[in-house]
């Protein structure tokens, strides 16, 4: 009995301080939107998606569970490698080779009673809009820019301006060595990943001519082996960056080339680093950034304090390189952003129109006013004003009706006009017979 009571008390103790923060207004709480009486229940029902169960992901899953979220889903396609164990603390030696999402979910559920974590051992690209629609919040702990850009464009494109539930706040954490960032994106409302793409320094590319003729650095020799020697000799059908035999082949090739040009410094681990583009991971940076991200998640979910993202600051950068420094600022949304600056607008058309009638209608439509529009749908070139060959190939389409061309309601079309260098319109078709 005592033991039982003790258990209950300790379970309640666990949430005591969290509940003080999220159920009572503080000095910075916006009382117009804060409702302490229902926040505990609201948060426990809120469905949160975590993308990535690696260095940041382990921290994020632990933090969210301890912040009062109880319905968490996690996606990660990777399996556990022995080199992860120093910082990805939800994994043990015996877990090596198992899926990260699965092991992480199981571990956290065992430690935090009442939390349900649903793992998905696959790529984010394996899911569609319907899947992502079920969440109220997305927290990313990713290591690739590609994956960020993909989920970003998915969340931006999901927004239906008339339906509130289609706006999914996205919290993105990222680390590289001692540096990191935490940012909040409110799709179509604030600056998105694509708007902020220039914040990521791209990897410096080496001129092909330098690789082919006169290498100067050990990296050039490795890139030469990677780009040129492999292509020419094809020792294996496909290069697998994780296969030590393949890496060793590149290493030996690079070594020979380095000897030829008298360049020191080509090693196996440098080869691995250059080919796999390895970024060093530091546990402390991960935990600082994950904490910042989950703090935002708690604030967004509970309204207990103003969160990052709107209307002002949306980007927190952190550097531990030289003591500790953080700076929080507003990254402006870009009007010409290819993802969030260019949303499809509704266009009412008569499906029995010929394409020519649609083309001509653009000249007089107040929302377009284009005299020489070129029009395409996904996978289908409808009419291009130029170049001449393409114009000739697509000209027969002008006489066909929109239905005959296979266009459907809600389909998107892209419209450009050379007279307006910056114009790229996207329209969502709406059929209305006149």
């Amino acid at each position, binding site marked *: 009995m005592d033991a039982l009571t003790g258990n209950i008390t300790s379970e309640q103790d666990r949430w005591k301080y969290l509940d003080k923060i999220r159920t009572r207004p503080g000095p910075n709480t916006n009382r117009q939107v804060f409702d302490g009486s229902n926040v505990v229940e609201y948060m426990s029902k809120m469905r949160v998606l975590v993308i990535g169960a690696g260095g940041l992901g382990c921290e994020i899953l632990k933090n969210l569970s301890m912040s009062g979220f109880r319905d968490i889903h996690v996606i990660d396609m990777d399996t556990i490698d022995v080199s992860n164990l120093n910082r990805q603390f939800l994994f043990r030696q015996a877990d090596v080779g198992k899926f990260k999402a699965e092991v992480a979910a199981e571990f956290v559920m065992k430690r935090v009673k009442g939390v349900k974590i649903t793992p998905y051992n696959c790529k984010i690209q394996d899911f569609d809009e319907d899947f992502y629609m079920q969440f109220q919040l997305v927290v990313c702990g990713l290591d690739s820019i590609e994956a960020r850009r993909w989920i970003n464009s998915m969340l931006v494109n999901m927004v239906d301006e008339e339906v509130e539930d289609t706006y999914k706040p996205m919290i993105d954490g990222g680390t590289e060595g001692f540096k990191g960032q935490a940012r909040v994106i409110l799709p179509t409302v604030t600056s998105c990943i694509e708007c902020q793409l220039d914040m990521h320094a791209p990897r410096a590319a080496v001129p092909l001519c330098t690789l082919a003729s006169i290498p100067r650095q050990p990296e050039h020799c490795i890139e030469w082996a990677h780009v040129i020697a492999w292509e020419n000799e094809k020792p294996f059908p496909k290069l697998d960056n994780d296969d030590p035999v393949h890496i060793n082949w590149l290493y030996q090739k690079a070594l020979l080339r380095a000897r030829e040009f008298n360049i020191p410094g080509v090693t196996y681990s440098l080869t691995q680093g250059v080919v796999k583009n390895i970024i060093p991971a530091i546990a402390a940076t991960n935990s600082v950034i994950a904490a910042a991200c989950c703090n935002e998640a708690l604030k967004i979910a509970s309204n207990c304090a103003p969160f990052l993202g709107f209307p002002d600051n949306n980007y927190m950068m952190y550097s531990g390189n030289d003591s500790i420094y953080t700076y929080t600022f507003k990254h402006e949304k870009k009007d010409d952003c*290819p993802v969030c600056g*260019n949303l499809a607008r509704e266009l009412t058309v008569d499906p029995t129109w010929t394409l020519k009638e649609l083309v001509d209608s653009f000249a007089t439509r107040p929302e377009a006013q284009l005299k020489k529009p070129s029009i395409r749908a996904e996978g289908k070139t409808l009419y291009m004003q*130029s170049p001449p060959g393409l114009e000739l190939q697509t000209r027969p389409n002008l006489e066909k009706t929109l239905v005959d061309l296979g266009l459907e309601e809600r389909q*998107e079309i892209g419209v450009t006009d050379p007279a307006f260098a910056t*114009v*790229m319109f996207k329209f969502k078709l709406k059929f209305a017979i006149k």
Partner: protein
Amino acid sequence: MLKIWSMKKEQQKAENEGAAAGKKKKVTAAQLRVQKDLSELSLGLTMRTEFPDPDDILSFILYITPDEGMYNGGRFSFSFNIPPSFPHEPPKVLCREKIYHPNIDLEGKVCLNILREDWKPVLNLNAVIVGLQFLFLEPNASDPLNKEAAEDLRANREGFKRNVKIAMSGGAVRGEVYERVLI
């Protein structure tokens, strides 16, 4: 028990197919950008594009017929393959003929700075084709991909010109046979 399982799977499969059919295809950023770039191309009289499949604007062929310089009289073609990440990554461009040129190797790889290290999303397809055209007007010996051709150009410009003529008519230069590209 087993039966319920398979029925459930069947049902889910049918649901997924239904969902996929109801999905409307969206125009991707890369396609829209290529569409814009294409409608702004200024090809002039020396260049022409060819689209094997007009519905796939991400791959096409560019023909260049220089009307001056040492490659005058030839016709050269380049295959353009534009990655889905365009304009954040440059188009992939290959010369389809085996030609004698210091900046184009025997496999057709092209050394043009804006196709690799100096590519920026603000550049467009027009910048690329202008760059390609320039390679035929001013072959550049300091950025060699075909080292022998570059040395030839540097050491003896007149001799290089003669070798270009030989290569363009399908002859051999230093034991390497080139493709006939004369019109």
